[in-house]
């Protein structure tokens, strides 16, 4: 029969395969839930139903071997369900093994069209033996309450979704990408002098395009739980092999990401989880000797953070001992003794990411083959993310990953170098500053500036690109624009000729002919139809030697890094000092060019931001202070704020005018109580009281709730 399969049959089989693989993943999760709560009738009923469906369908499709295995498992499940048998680790193990056998057979069907030649006799016998209670683990407890054979109707939600081929979604995304490009081109052609009707129409089209883009991107969103669905199983099996007890807890599984990113981080995350069980968490004996509970806990957590997603893999194991790590790095020849002496705590931990480095003295089948952490890092960085380690000896280790929500369309801004323009992803941008030539110093022959209390190394973009024109060499330039970027947690200033506008760019990967080119992350088509290269900030930093140079790191406090708090951006405003969470500040712009009237009514004030205009508000107005028109703002005319914080709160983008940004400080654990609404509390920095603002609440009460795109019309 399978040999003469009609097209229709092929389709049915293909659907069966997809559905069965999904069901088996669910089966794994349910079984692990059941291990903790062996009496749950709902979970048992769910497992039984899954197995029953697989058995029924493969019987219909003529996959006899598959059917036989599923049937044996179903019979065992029936015994569990009617209470004549309780779930023991052995029973759970054999059911999990059934899942694996079924998966193998499904893979066989996908590859060859038939369910293989393995009858899985041993497994079927085992299932049969367990069903008959053929172990010492006979039921001694009172029989479990009988599970209703029919699942309550409420358990099955009405089907409000459809299954869509991924290729179709990818195609849709490409088309929307082209629409965004066409929209950008149109916006450029319409310009500022066009007839008002044309401008309105173009703005309308722009808003609709943005909406469509958002919707399409949403359809591609997948909860991150799909990437870690298999973790409970991985942890269980690995812990058993190693004789360890590990409980996995997950949080934030509903956090959504573009499916290509979910796909890309699946392997790195799995690797981190395996590593945590293998190297992090100790054996029960060691743990109890150290006064810890025998069962180790592995926490996997995800959450949204600005336009990014943060993921943490935390274990409560033994942590990473910096000195032992360093010693191993020296013996394995990754660092010289001389280098080792100069390394900061963070540099030492980064050794873990060196290619070929291993902390295992023996090669096990789990890890220790010297591949892994460098691959983890590379894979995360490939999708524009970063990895950092926090560890506390004896207490545990946390790996924190930050990745963008989506890859296909990103916020970027343009810089000029030579005759070309280059796009830099917004996520790497900290701020834009103008640096007077006199402020550039040489430190070990490398140009640096002092910026917000730190030494910031400068990188000349033109020089890195091999362009003949080097900005430093030009005598006519009095001040140079410097883009402050962060890469792998290190900061540097990129000297460019000119900074252009921010815009949404559609990222196109570079072809095979250009792969391995570290400086570029891709290419994009700009509004005028020309192609621009997208800079890979990590590659750029590496190429310029910033990431490796010890001089790039500021004098970091020796406080324990594991408790580092979110940063606050300290700003001056006419009536005092304020601080806002750095997390919501997308960027900082100097001396903005205002659009609309310069009247003092806030609703008329807009700031051009890329291809849209965003509302501009004053800190004083947010706080309900009386505006002092005659009070100079940092020496500038009152209606010209010197710097504007671009604040993103959900989908809303607002410009908040301040006199100037002063520094980034770490958020203290405790705030002194607030003195007025909209203020979370007060801290003292440099001997001056500083109000920590609850900016999202202030903006919400201020009523700037309209999405930025509509604010233009």
């Amino acid at each position: 029969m399978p040999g003469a399969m009609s097209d229709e049959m092929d389709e049915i089989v293909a659907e069966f395969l997809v559905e069965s693989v999904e069901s088996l993943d669910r089966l794994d999760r349910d079984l692990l839930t059941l291990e903790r709560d062996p009496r749950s009738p709902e979970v048992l009923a769910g497992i039984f139903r899954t197995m029953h469906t697989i058995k029924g369908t493969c019987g219909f499709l003529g996959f006899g071997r598959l059917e036989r295995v599923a049937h044996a498992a179903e019979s065992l499940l029936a015994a569990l369900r009617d209470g004549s048998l309780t779930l023991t680790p052995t029973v759970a193990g054999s059911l999990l093994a059934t899942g694996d056998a079924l998966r193998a057979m499904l893979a066989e069907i996908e590859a060859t069209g038939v369910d293989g030649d393995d009858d899985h006799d041993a497994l079927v016998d085992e299932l049969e033996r367990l069903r008959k209670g053929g172990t010492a683990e006979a039921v001694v407890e009172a029989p479990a309450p009988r599970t209703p054979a029919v699942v309550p109707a409420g358990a099955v939600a009405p089907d409000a979704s459809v299954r869509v081929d991924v290729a179709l979604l990818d195609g849709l995304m490409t088309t929307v990408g082209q629409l965004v490009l066409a929209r950008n081109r149109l916006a450029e052609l319409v310009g500022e002098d066009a007839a008002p009707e044309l401008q309105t129409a173009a703005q309308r089209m722009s808003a609709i395009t943005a909406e469509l883009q958002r919707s399409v991107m949403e359809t591609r969103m997948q909860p991150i739980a799909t990437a870690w669905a298999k973790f409970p199983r991985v942890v269980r099996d690995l812990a058993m092999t190693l004789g360890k007890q590990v409980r996995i807890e997950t949080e934030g599984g509903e956090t959504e990401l573009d499916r290509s990113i979910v796909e890309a981080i699946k392997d790195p995350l799995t690797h981190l989880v395996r590593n945590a069980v293998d190297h992090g968490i100790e054996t029960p004996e060691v743990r109890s000797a150290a006064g810890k509970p025998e069962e180790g806990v592995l926490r996997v957590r995800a959450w949204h953070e600005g336009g990014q997603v943060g993921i943490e893999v935390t274990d409560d194991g033994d942590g990473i001992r910096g000195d032992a790590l360093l010693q191993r790095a020296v013996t394995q020849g990754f660092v010289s003794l001389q280098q080792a002496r100069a390394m900061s705590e963070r540099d030492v931990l980064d050794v873990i990411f060196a290619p070929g480095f291993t902390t295992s003295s023996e090669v096990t089948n789990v890890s220790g083959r010297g591949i892994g952490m460098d691959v983890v890092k590379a894979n995360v960085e490939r999708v524009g993310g970063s990895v950092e380690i926090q560890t506390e000896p004896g207490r545990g280790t946390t790996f924190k990953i930050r990745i963008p929500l989506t890859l296909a369309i990103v916020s970027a801004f343009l810089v000029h170098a030579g005759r070309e323009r280059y796009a830099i992803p917004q996520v790497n941008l900290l701020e834009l500053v103008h640096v007077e030539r006199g402020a550039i110093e040489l430190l070990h022959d490398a140009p640096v500036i002092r910026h917000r209390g730190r030494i910031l190394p400068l990188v000349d973009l033109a020089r890195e690109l091999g362009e003949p024109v080097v900005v430093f060499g030009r005598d006519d330039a009095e001040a140079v624009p410097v883009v402050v970027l962060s890469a792998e947690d290190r900061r540097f200033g990129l000297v460019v000729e000119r900074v252009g506008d921010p815009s949404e760019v559609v990222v196109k990967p570079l072809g095979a002919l250009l792969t391995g080119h570290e400086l570029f992350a891709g290419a994009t088509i700009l509004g005028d139809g020309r192609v621009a290269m997208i800079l890979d900030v990590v590659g750029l930093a590496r190429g310029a030697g910033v990431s490796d140079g010890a001089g790039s790191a500021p004098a970091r406090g020796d406080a324990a890094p594991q408790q580092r708090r979110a940063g606050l951006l300290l700003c001056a405003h006419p009536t005092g000092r304020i601080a806002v969470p750095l997390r919501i500040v997308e960027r900082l712009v100097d001396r903005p060019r205002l659009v609309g009237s310069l009247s003092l009514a806030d609703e008329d004030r807009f700031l051009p931001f890329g291809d849209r205009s965003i509302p501009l508000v004053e800190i004083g107005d947010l706080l309900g202070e009386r505006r002092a028109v005659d009070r100079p703002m940092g020496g500038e005319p009152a209606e010209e704020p010197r710097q504007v914080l671009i604040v993103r709160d959900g989908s809303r983008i607002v410009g908040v005018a301040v006199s100037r940004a002063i520094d980034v400080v770490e958020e203290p654990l405790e705030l002194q109580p607030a003195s007025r609404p909209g203020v979370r509390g007060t801290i003292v920095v440099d001997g001056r009281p500083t109000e920590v603002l609850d900016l999202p609440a202030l903006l919400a009460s201020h009523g700037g709730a309209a999405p930025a795109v509509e604010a233009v019309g």
Partner: protein
Amino acid sequence: MKRFATFVVDGRTLGVDVARVREVTGARELTPVPLADPAIAGLLNLRGEIVTAIDLRARLGLPAAEAVADDGSEAMHVVLTGAEPVSLLVDDVGDVVEVEEDAFELPPVTLRGPAGELIRGAYQREGALLLELDLDRALDARTERDEVSRP
């Protein structure tokens, strides 16, 4: 019978299997890729698609062309079929020609350096020589200049 799409590079007539050619287009603005292989002419926007242009002169080790040739003609792009959009930057584009398979000869011994490596063979045609370009080698970034040094 084989059908070749032909084009001219530095006065020579080259051809590739016509099935490998998607379209031919005139000169376009190229965005250079700094620090890339010299044979990468740059990237161009072909109706919303980003195409990698290969400078066939550079690839064949021939002298660079003037931006606009003496006769006023500009470089043309031969866009190839395949998963990855690639174009060959050539001096001019010729006709599609048919040749007899048995007219095939090995490349002339006078072809040296990269040119010799990238030419699969030649066809005598009405007194002129049509050189068949080995596309797979021409597009393989790994067959690089180490072959230039061969005798």
